[in-house]
């Protein structure tokens, strides 16, 4: 039973504060969405969780152990991180790319073992990328590449998967495929999945719990239906939205447009 505990995390760049007193817990088998507008500190929060950035204050623990005190390999065994972008300067094959994820499970001078190949195979199978295994990564489309990156995080065999805008730049079809894959991973493998996204429609449909971040602070937190309310949308995102339960899809957010109050404010600002 894995438990991720974020306690009182603050982070700032020299010029400005990014995160202020962020505090939450998350457990195995849940999909946790972190939502917020551009520049609100969502990605920074993910990077603080896996210790890419060190928080100025506060602590992140996995099963009671501080992430900051772990070695890089130990962190990688605990959590996989799928970033927004992939470099393709030197195009490795998909198989080689995914095999890299085994690094944290191998000793210093290990070579690929039969077991590693099996695990890579399974991850390729799970993410539907097996048929590309022999292709170079730069020959794939954005959606295919994203799935390969998830496969690579999976072979680390982590309990926690951190995803930074996994559906960004994907067409609507691939967005659903990807979110279905993520749901499957959490339900079947019992992984804790933390998704950073600004897509409210997908967050409503797929997340068990949601944390809304505004200016680096938690503005609302709880089960998805309690957070994604018409009122919160207006307050946090300046968005008019209709939220209803649809028996076909579950929680359904229909975005109507920018808030009236907000455009009023804009006009006033323009006038002055």
């Amino acid at each position, binding site marked *: 039973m894995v438990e991720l505990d974020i306690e009182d995390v603050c982070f700032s760049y020299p010029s400005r504060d990014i995160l202020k007193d962020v505090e939450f817990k998350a457990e195995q088998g849940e999909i946790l969405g972190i939502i917020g507008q551009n520049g609100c500190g969502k990605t920074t929060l993910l990077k603080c969780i896996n210790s890419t950035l060190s928080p100025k204050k506060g602590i992140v623990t996995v099963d009671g152990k501080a992430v900051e005190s772990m070695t890089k390999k130990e962190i990688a065994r605990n959590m996989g991180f799928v*970033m927004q972008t992939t470099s393709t300067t030197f195009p*490795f094959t998909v*198989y080689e790319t995914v095999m890299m994820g085994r*690094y944290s499970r191998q000793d210093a001078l290990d070579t690929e073992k039969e077991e590693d190949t099996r695990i890579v195979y399974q991850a390729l199978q799970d993410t539907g990328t*097996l*048929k590309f295994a022999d292709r170079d990564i730069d020959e794939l489309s954005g959606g295919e590449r994203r799935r390969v990156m998830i496969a690579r995080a999976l072979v*680390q065999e982590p309990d926690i998967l951190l995803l930074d805008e996994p559906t960004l730049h994907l067409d609507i079809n691939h967005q659903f495929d990807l979110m279905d894959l993520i749901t499957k991973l959490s339900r079947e493998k019992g992984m804790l999945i933390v998704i950073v996204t600004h897509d409210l429609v997908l967050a409503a449909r797929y997340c068990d719990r949601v944390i809304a971040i505004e200016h680096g602070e938690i503005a609302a937190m709880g089960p998805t239906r309690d957070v994604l309310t018409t009122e919160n949308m207006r307050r946090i995102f300046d968005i008019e939205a209709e939220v209803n339960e649809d028996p076909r899809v579950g929680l359904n957010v229909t975005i109507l447009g920018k808030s009236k109050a907000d455009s009023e404010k804009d006009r006033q600002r323009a006038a002055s």
Partner: protein
Amino acid sequence: MSEIKDYEGIQEFRKKARRKAVMAVGGTALFFVVAFLLCMCFGNYVMSPSEVFNGIFGIGDAGIVQIARNVRLPRVLCAALVGAALSVAGLTMQSLFKNPMASPTVLGISHGASFGASMAISFGIGAGVFGTYSTSVMAFVFCFITMALVYAIARTRYGISTVTLLLSGVAVGAFFNGLVSLVQYVADDDALQEIVFWTMGSFNKCNWDSVPVALIPILLGIVMTVLINRELNMVSAGEEQAANMGVNVRNIRIIAIVATSLCVAGSVAVSGTIGFVGLIIPHVFRMLVGPNHRLLIPLCIFGGAAFLMIMDTIAKAGFEMSFPVGVLTSLLGAPFFIYILKTRKKEVWE
């Protein structure tokens, strides 16, 4: 080509990849052996292969023994060592900077090493402690300083852009070049001649004393590079991603810079600055077999060694007059540099 559908498909793909790797490394190693023999045969005096063998083992005419054993063999060995070292150094730098244009000359590292070495040559700095190795040690120290400097200047929070990388290489290289000129200006005639000869890059002065001077740092550098081959793969695909997968990027960066400095320093100490080998060789092999260091390192060792041995033999015996091999590699390398810029725009600039 059939699609991979099951575990057998993966096994098949791996087998094919392994076969390709064995063939590539085997082929290049064979090419190296042939090139070695040919280079031993050609020179001012052309020897037959049997004369070469006999000469190396000290059989037959004393003159031929002398040429084969004490003139040609150490020279060819040095050329092989330097070729391998510069290629591996170029490879490591390209991966570290995630840029196919990086190489010791392009980024001014060789100029830094030149300055260190010319200090040792003209002022005897370090001679008291390191003896014959003072040139290598000084070259290494300045190599390391230059590379760390270029890396620090080029690196920003958002990664390394080609423009800043090349420009910081140009700037740092120009600075050390200026310092070399200064040393030349104040040096006495003997030292001056040696420095000038040596900035052109040549194996003319290589003898058995040079072999260990090159061998020790180069061997160390290459072994270090081999040990981090997996991490280099991951870093070349993105530092932050590598860190997410458990690589201690900072340590790898330091090891890579030290390994490269050792390789370049060993090379510069015996042959001066020979340009563009570290650009051409890794690039060609990467185009042939892909970016995996497990495969690229042995290929660069054999291929780079063969390439520089052949270049040196051509420069020495291919024309009416012999000239420094550095001139030849620059004449070849600069157009190649332009060729990469023109044809691989996407990889270079993104």
